[in-house]
């Protein structure tokens, strides 16, 4: 599903974020990306979503070479991805409901069907009762779950999560991980970056450990 082959990523200024990284993630697999901050976890996820392009090597998603993808094709790639951002990127000028609606609006989804899907996604993350609230009124954990609802509402095959439990206490973090596990069970491919040892311990999930841009 996702395949990195000798990928290098160097940022302007010479900072090497990823060095010669190769790995494969199978369809329906769940993978943790671990490592200290600055190890290249975020960069790796950005390469999958084509927010950044590799300097050398190839990134394949769904057998498409991301590095060679034309600008006009990018939106259609991203519609197959659900991305959970480290900084949430929620929109505070609209309700919880409308935040989750946005991906469906972008795909020109039918109005009534959209509403059903939005409520299903909110129900999944336990925010159905807050649909009219402004995201600014939500707690950190709730905002994180809202971000998840937005990522899954158009039922993507691949879910990318960048530090989804970053600032949450253990109980909240566990809740979020449970949600991810339920997606894993229905066949979604997940790549989750985290440096949170508490969520890593219990599972038999494969880890990709990054250290200073290199895969360990």
């Amino acid at each position, binding site marked *: 599903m996702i395949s990195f082959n000798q990928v290098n990523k160097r940022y302007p200024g010479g900072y090497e974020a990823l060095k010669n990284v190769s790995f494969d993630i199978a369809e329906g697999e769940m993978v943790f990306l671990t490592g200290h901050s600055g190890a290249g976890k975020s960069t790796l996820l950005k390469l999958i979503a084509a*927010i950044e392009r590799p300097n050398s090597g190839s990134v394949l998603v769904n057998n498409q070479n991301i590095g060679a993808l034309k600008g006009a094709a990018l939106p259609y790639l991203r519609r197959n991805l659900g*991305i959970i951002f480290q900084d949430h990127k929620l929109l505070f000028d609209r309700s919880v409901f409308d935040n989750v609606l946005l991906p469906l609006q972008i*795909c020109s989804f039918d109005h009534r069907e959209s509403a059903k899907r939005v409520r299903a996604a909110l129900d999944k993350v336990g925010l159905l009762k807050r649909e009219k609230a402004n995201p600014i009124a939500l707690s950190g954990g709730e905002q994180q779950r809202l971000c998840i609802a937005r990522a899954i509402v158009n039922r993507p095959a691949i879910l990318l999560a960048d530090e989804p439990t970053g600032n949450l206490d253990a109980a909240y973090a566990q809740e979020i991980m449970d949600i991810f596990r339920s997606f894993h069970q229905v066949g979604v491919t997940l790549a989750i970056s985290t440096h949170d040892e508490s969520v890593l311990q219990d599972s038999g999930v494969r880890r990709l450990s990054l250290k200073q841009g290199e895969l360990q």
Partner: protein
Amino acid sequence: MRHALALHLALMRSVLRRMFASKLGGLLNILVIGIALSLPTGMYVLLKNAQGLVEQLSGSPQISLFLTLNAQEQDIAELHKRLEANESIAGIEFVARDRALEQLKQSTGLADVIGSLEKNPLPDAFIISPRQTEPQALDALREELAQLPRVEQAQLDSAWAHKLEALLRFGRLAVLILASLLSVALIAVTFNTIRLQILTQRDEIEVSRLIGATNGFIRRPFLYFGALQGLLGGITAWAIVAASLMLLNRPLDELSQLYASQFSIQPLNPGDSLSLLLFSLYLGWLGAWLSVTRHLSQIEPR
């Protein structure tokens, strides 16, 4: 199809909501555009009316031949013969000086003043309708007639109409320049409005890009906004012009009655009105398009 229409309407609603999110701001923008467009439009209407007047007057040019005051009846008869013999004259009307004075009394209401005159100051006159109406032919004929004996003055009635025509050409050019300048101003106003919109919606644009919005999807609301703002500005301009003409026509009516004529300014006809609205819509769209093209590329997700 119905689905597409519903999406369209939803987009329109959200654009309107955004435009009047701050009521005063939205209205002020539309007013600025409306006033800017109403200036050349109003001038155009006035020019077009003047044009109609000129065409009406210069359609059948005439030459007035004023005779010397001491012209005797036999002089007049002789002149009449010579005029009839002239190939380039289509019609001749003789206006005797007494009849001319009588007409003047009736048509101007200056009977008292005229009655107090000791003798008739008006000369006898021939009103000549030329066969050809080209300016050169008219001038040549006028020159020729002026040379005839007992002719004091030969006056081409349409001469002033030609002068006015030249003046109108100048006016049309002035309107064109003004309209061009104000069109650029309209584009600039829209450009800036859209620029501010893009800045305030930076987050939304960035997130939309990240979750798969095409460029078209992102541009569309801004283009709609620009076009709609232009259209509303055009409607405002139309209303300003229509209201101004209504105000102007009342005193003009009184004025034209004093001159014993019927004249009123005709408002914009449907064709011109439609052109105005389409043009303003297009300018708004163009301003938005330029702005979106310029500014959206600067917002790349990180």
